[in-house]
């Protein structure tokens, strides 16, 4: 096992609101090795962003957090309590979704980069500015010396996201968390930004967590992919294994929602029926049960523990897909025409 950079054990994050406590993250455990790129995939409300924000200590004051997180040997939650400076932004940084709002509209782009350099590294204005220009060049911004003095509203969406990335990488962090970095950008720019992130990551030997709701974005880039649902980690595996031989019915359902090159054209994509899980006081059952084609009575009695091969392919399901138990459960439901929770199902075309 190469050196573990980040470990997250039994992470719980709750938000008291006027309508009850929201269990945003429900016992998540995962690890990340130095230089590794982990993709976290899930619908909105699955807790992926909350997890990222917990790492970055960006949760609002009202949040209640349990479990422990260590990063390069340091207990992250202790660092947060001591309000230690020069941790976030230097060791660990984050990039957000919408470049249009991630930059302060009334400050020049250069300033927003140099302020971190001046603060964390104590650079003088001159050196900070030169570094900023270099950074902009590295992230592929044309005419960086001119752009550095421009205001955000004078740049396009793609350029702005590059400035944000430059800002994040200014102090050579060892972990970059990218929360849906390309969602707000059009597809053509999306690919170039992701390639940029890959290139930068490799050059700097930086580990990265890419958070997205789009499996396609994760494929081909991340070493491992973790799938979250209802605040829980339901499956994690090396990318190709996940795509080829997924175990958790939700992952399988997710895979069916993305168009595949090898599928005939006009294949109908199947939306996942039912509504997203209830996060307020969730029941002691598998969160996906209501929408799962394989659902059996035992799915409703307890929360499925994380099984499978530790460190290789983990998943939390009593009747995992692509296994004999799973096929047996599915055939029973198909025969009955519905699952234990009453979900109407019939044989889907092209089941792999």
């Amino acid at each position: 096992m190469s050196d573990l950079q980040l470990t997250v054990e039994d992470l719980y994050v709750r938000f008291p609101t006027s309508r009850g406590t929201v269990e945003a993250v429900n016992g998540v455990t995962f690890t990340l090795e130095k230089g590794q790129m982990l993709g976290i995939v899930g619908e909105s409300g699955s807790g992926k962003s909350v997890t990222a924000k917990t790492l970055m200590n960006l949760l609002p004051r009202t949040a209640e957090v349990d479990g422990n997180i260590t990063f390069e040997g340091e207990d992250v939650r202790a660092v947060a309590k001591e309000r230690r400076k020069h941790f976030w932004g230097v060791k660990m940084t984050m990039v957000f979704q919408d470049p249009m709002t991630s930059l302060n509209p009334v400050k020049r782009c250069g300033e927003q980069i140099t302020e971190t350099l001046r603060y964390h590294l104590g650079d003088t204005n001159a050196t900070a500015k030169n570094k900023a220009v270099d950074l902009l060049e590295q992230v592929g911004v044309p005419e960086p010396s001119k752009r550095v003095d421009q205001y955000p509203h004078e740049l396009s969406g793609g350029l702005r996201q590059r400035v944000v990335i430059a800002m994040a990488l200014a102090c050579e962090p060892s972990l970059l968390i990218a929360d849906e970095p390309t969602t707000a950008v059009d597809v053509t720019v999306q690919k170039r930004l992701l390639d940029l992130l890959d290139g930068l990551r490799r050059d700097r030997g930086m580990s990265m967590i890419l958070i997205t709701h789009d499996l396609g974005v994760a494929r081909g880039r991340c070493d491992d992919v973790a799938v979250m649902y209802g605040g829980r980690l339901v499956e994690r595996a090396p990318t190709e294994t996940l795509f080829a031989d997924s175990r958790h019915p939700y992952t399988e359902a997710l895979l069916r929602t993305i168009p595949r090159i090898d599928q005939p054209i006009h294949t109908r994509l199947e939306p996942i029926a039912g509504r997203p899980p209830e996060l307020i006081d969730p029941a002691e059952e598998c969160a996906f049960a209501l929408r799962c084609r394989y659902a059996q009575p035992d799915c409703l009695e307890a929360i499925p523990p994380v099984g499978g091969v530790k460190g290789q392919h983990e998943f939390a399901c009593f009747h995992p897909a692509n296994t004999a138990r799973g096929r047996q459960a599915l055939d029973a439901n198909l025969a009955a025409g519905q699952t234990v929770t009453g979900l109407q199902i019939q044989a889907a075309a092209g089941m792999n």
Partner: protein
Amino acid sequence: MTGSVPSTTVVDDIADDHEVDDTSIKRLGFGFWIAISWIGLISIAALLAPLLPIADPNEIANGAPRDGILGDNFMGTDALGRDVFARTIWGARISLGVGFLGILLGVVVGGALGIAAGYFKGLADQVISFLVFSLLSFPSLVLALLITASLNRSFLTVAMTLGIVGIAPISRLARATTIQFADREFVQAARVIGAKSRRIIIKELLPNVLVPMGALTLLGMGISIVAEGSLAFLGLSVEGEAISWGKSIVDGSQTRDLNQNSHVAFVPIFAMFLTVMALNFAGDRIREYTDVRETAF
């Protein structure tokens, strides 16, 4: 009153699935009803003053002069031995009267101007906005001075003066509110189906503008009551034997009276403070309830 708790995007992340709106659900709140009941109480007391079991406010030497609070007279007596409590109740008649009448004029004229400017836009808006800006740049108290110093200072002239002073800020807000609604679909739709402007304004715009204007009336009334006090300090409040909070405060704040028996000034000050605070609070809650930008004021 403390506004919404700042939620970060993480809560929104959750919120967009569940309609959890972390700001307190929009209710007028307990404080609002206290404010309204105080306003009601003081107005009724003012209206029924002649019937109330209180002393005659103009009776000289009703008690020993400059007698403190809780002496023979409940709230003490002023320099001429008149009952301070009775004068405060009777003073409410003029202060609230001037406040209400004044702001009514301001709302009617200012509102009409503002709605016209907001709805018709174009030249009408230009002209009205120019007029309003000129009126705004005219020092309001000098305007009030001009009118009260030259005409007789009867109850009506003072109320009219405060009304005129209120026209500019009120029309500014009315215009802002109207613009806000004028671009809404339901107004465009009405225009499209060829409704006459007058009908649109009355049927569509007015109901929407009325509530924020209601908020402004309350806020404006508070300001008019204070303005009457300012006029009193310049010696230009309602003339003759009429009693008003402003005049009582001036009478009580002579240097020596202030040092020796400050209750004469502080009882009306407290009454004015409570009433203006109640009006501001009620107006604020209504404004917040209808969420009109405060800057338009």
